[in-house]
């Protein structure tokens, strides 16, 4: 049971990280990007290619992936999103879905459908503690997600750009009036959010092996987590992710294991039924 909790925290951290990027972008630019997973996958592939081609230490490849994620995010925001930003929710959903298809198939076209082993950043040691096996992977993943969540929150809270980013969703028009450069800030949000997603991709790849289909299921889980936690709340995304991971792994100790993936959907229904804005979402006042 305790092992299940540890497994759940690790798995949940990955969902949480992916969801954090998603929520960050959505909160600031009001766009829920269905292409988030594919951007993360693409970034992981790019980093891997650089690693293979140059033989540099793997950490460099990880950094390249993160940078690649940021660059992709910027490109998407600048080329596509900016034009449909004000066209409403349906437009952004459709456009990001379209991007999902384009990027997914571009990955297959460029790197092929091959499945490749992906080095794990945190090594391979396992520690036994009170009957539970905790691997360095477990610890590394949880710690990374935690640190990034804190970093994001701190960034929003205590830096000037962060403050500006927070201002936008509160009052977009007002933000422009006081001289905030909305374009630059939107781009920043996308860069950061996508870079965080890339980090999640790098953490997932060793578990699923690097392949073009690897982010399909995690993205849906990330959306589930984001919805659970409220699509605007970073805290919600983080807590929601861990919660889902733990609940999934603990419940299957008692119920048939193949139902594990269905638990997420079950929970979305319940939560949205009871609390239409998710567990941590903000209630937005509607101006009359």
């Amino acid at each position, binding site marked *: 049971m305790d092992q299940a909790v540890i497994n759940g925290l690790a798995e949940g951290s990955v969902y949480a990280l992916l969801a954090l990027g998603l929520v960050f972008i959505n909160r600031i630019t009001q766009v829920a990007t269905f292409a988030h997973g594919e951007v993360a996958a693409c970034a992981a592939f790019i980093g891997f290619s650089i690693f293979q081609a140059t033989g540099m230490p793997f950490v460099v490849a990880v950094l390249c992936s993160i940078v690649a994620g940021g660059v992709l995010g910027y490109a998407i925001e600048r080329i596509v999103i900016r034009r449909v930003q004000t066209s*409403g929710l349906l437009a952004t*959903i459709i456009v990001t879905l379209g991007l999902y298809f384009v990027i997914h198939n571009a990955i297959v076209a460029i790197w092929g459908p091959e499945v490749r082993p992906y080095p794990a950043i945190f090594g391979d040691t396992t520690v036994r503690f009170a009957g539970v096996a905790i691997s360095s992977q477990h610890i590394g993943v949880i710690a990374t997600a935690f640190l990034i969540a804190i970093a994001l929150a701190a960034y929003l809270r205590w830096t000037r750009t962060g403050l500006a980013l927070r201002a936008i969703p509160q009052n977009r028009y007002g933000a422009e009036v006081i001289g905030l450069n909305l374009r630059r800030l939107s781009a920043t949000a996308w860069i950061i959010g996508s870079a965080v997603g890339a980090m999640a991709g790098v953490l997932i790849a060793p578990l699923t092996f690097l392949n073009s289909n690897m982010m399909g299921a995690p993205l849906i889980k990330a959306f589930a987590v984001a919805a659970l936690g409220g699509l605007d709340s970073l805290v919600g995304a983080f807590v929601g992710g861990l919660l889902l991971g733990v609940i999934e792994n603990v419940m299957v100790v008692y119920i048939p294991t193949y139902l594990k993936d269905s638990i997420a959907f079950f929970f979305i229904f319940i939560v949205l039924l009871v609390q239409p804005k998710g567990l941590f979402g903000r209630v937005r006042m509607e101006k009359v």
Partner: protein
Amino acid sequence: MTRAQIFGWAVVAVAAVVPLGLADYWLYLLTLIGAYGVVALGLNLLTGLSGQISLGHAGFFAIGAYTSAILTSKYGLPYPAAAALAVAAGWGVGLLVGIPAVRLQGLYLAIATLAFGIGVERVIYTFKGLTGGPYGLMIDPPAVLGFAANSPLKLYYLVLVAATLCVLFIANIVRSSQVRMLVAMRDSELAAACMGINVTRLKVLAFAISAALAALGGVLYAPAIGFVSVEQFTLWLSITFISMIVVGGLGSITGSFLGAAFVVIVPELLRGFGAYYQIVYGLAMILVFVFWPKGLVGFVDLIGRRIGGAPSPARPPAIALSKKAGENS
């Protein structure tokens, strides 16, 4: 008759005559377009007119397809009865999902419907004793009132008749006061509520009707393929449905079928290119909103205006439609 009605009946006439010379494979494609078009009609009512976004309509489509397939093949019910029950099932589940769902806004509604769609897929899988799971169910040619649609041509005519009836139905209710209230509601939910319109009731109604139409689409689709299996009704299909109405032209009846045609024909044209037809889909979805929000129907309009010389009948601008879609839901 109005210009629109003349246009409509002309299309039906052409659709009735042209297929007589076509090979089986083309008839099969046209039949699919008919089935998908019916789904698009419902989705346009839901998204284009009442502004709610559903990413799970493959679920209702599956309910329609499976209900009619199981009732005809396992219980020997005649096709019309099975079809009616399937549509009723779609309506019922549409109400069940709609009632809680309409409380959700925008993206939450999209995610909830996404979860619903995936949920239906799982249920089909779990009850594989009944549904055949991934190996699916074979479907016999349907027979309506003694007319056995046991050839591609006959099946096509069956679907054509059904699609035409649906169009008449939708065209009629679009003019009704209920739907005008719906549109009013889409433009400003608050104002509509102030005027005494029962917003929730209308939204649920729109949901249920679109679900019933999606189920009917499934009922028509199943015999065209001759087979149903759980692999056909995935999230990818729900997304295909949405792209249908967007590429075809939101809120438009003609657009529904243009979008359906796009979605059926593009994979055929690009068959030699493997995965790349998905890239074309994706690009189309992006480009529509970036460059040509009116969708394919906008092209048709343009050509129509050039030929006819007269200004096209007023249709709400698509950007405004898409903007409202989701904002007020």
